[in-house]
């Protein structure tokens, strides 16, 4: 049981709709394209409608309109924010010299934001964690050196076009195979992940709908 549907009439209706949509999507497996395309459009439409409602209900009304109408003096930053959105929304008809600096400001701000987090939250702590610590004992040191060797070999595989000796070339070849092995392992993860989703859908049809699983 997925637990999302109540045992009453509404829940039963929800289960039937979910069943029809699931079977409709699976019809693609037997070559039916029209129903599948219709359901794709349905998903896109529903998602867009939900997003619009969420934006109005959870963002625009409580965070923009209500503060602007009821308590504007205490929210002075909202006015330049609205102006910024107006510039971005009107990008099609505004001159480029007006839009470009605003767009650049936004893109640079977002990039700096993400980059700062990546450096402080991931790069530096992960570099610190990757340092080989002799205090961890033999296995820790061996793990560290294996990780270092793999990292160097994989980085060598990305040296395209630059002059290389035979030793570096061989290392790059090994690095490429290590890279393929890593991607293969990730593909294995994906296979398990997607298979479990399919099994879950089959269990939904057999259990929630047909009641064959207890």
């Amino acid at each position, binding site marked *: 049981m997925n637990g999302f549907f109540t045992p009453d009439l509404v829940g039963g209706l929800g289960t039937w709709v979910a069943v029809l949509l699931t079977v409709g999507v699976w019809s693609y497996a037997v070559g039916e394209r029209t129903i599948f395309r219709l359901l794709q459009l349905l998903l896109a439409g529903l998602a867009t409608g939900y997003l619009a409602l969420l934006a109005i209900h959870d963002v625009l009304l409580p965070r923009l309109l209500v503060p602007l109408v009821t308590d504007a003096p205490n929210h002075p930053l909202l006015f330049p924010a609205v102006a910024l959105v107006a510039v971005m929304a009107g990008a099609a008809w505004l001159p480029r010299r007006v839009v470009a600096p605003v767009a650049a400001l936004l893109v640079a701000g977002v990039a700096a934001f993400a980059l700062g987090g990546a450096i402080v939250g*991931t790069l530096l*702590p992960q570099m610190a*964690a990757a340092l080989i610590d002799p205090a961890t004992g033999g296995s820790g040191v061996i793990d560290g050196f294996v990780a270092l060797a793999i990292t160097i070999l994989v980085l060598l595989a990305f040296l395209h076009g630059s002059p290389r000796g035979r030793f570096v070339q061989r290392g790059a070849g090994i690095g490429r195979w290590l890279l393929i092995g890593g991607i293969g392992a*990730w593909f294995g993860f994906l296979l398990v*992940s997607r*298979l479990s989703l399919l099994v879950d859908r089959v*269990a939904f049809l057999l259990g929630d709908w047909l009641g064959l699983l207890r």
Partner: protein
Amino acid sequence: MPSLGLLLVLALASLLPASDAVQLANPDATRSDELRGVVAGLPPNALVLVGFDPDLGTYGEIRATVRAALDDLIAHGARLAFVSFTPEGRALAAAELDRMRRAGQGALIADLGFVAGSEAGLVRSVADVVPADAVGAVADSIRARGGAMGAFTLVLVVSGGDLSARSWIEQVRPRLPSISLVAIAPTFLEPELAPYLRSGQLHALLATLRDGVAYANAVPVDQSAVTRRPISALPMLAGMLLALTLMGGSALRRLARGAPRGAG
């Protein structure tokens, strides 16, 4: 038609009675024990923030694990507050909150809603995570402790492709180093999140199906257990064998086609 054949095989395997000979749960319960240890170490009436941002597409894989974790937290006396930073996460959070209220857990949970802005919203929430319209005893408790993320003893991040525990580690942890983070994620996020567990930035992580099933099996069963039944092992085995057969057959055909060219 291999797709239809796969569906039939999975359906047949699902209908067969479960056998102890085929187990999906990881026999190495280290990760499951880590999460259980963190939950067991919570003080009474602890406030736990659930960052709920899974994908619609992959939530089916972690649903049983997430529900087991929520049950585990509530069984240890925790009070839960749900917040989402992605629209998909918000849709699923609303469904889960509805399910929990129907199960009689309404007094122990708070809905902090959707925060726009993705990672920027995440950063804004560090200082203020309770919306003005949030009501209830749990929301009041958070406000009494300052209304910021620092009010929480633990953060459980239910991850998805759009916003995972990585965003929390990169944007929240540097601003709130004392925060304790644990995560549940679909299998495809395992390679991305595992390094954070090894570096100690995550205190516990369940990011493979096997670890999730091991954890779900370890959490005591109650009346809601029927809604958190883990994925069956037998159809997974049948599906994997079928997939391997298809891949092996494809590789053999390719080799057979390539042999004459190589010989020439």
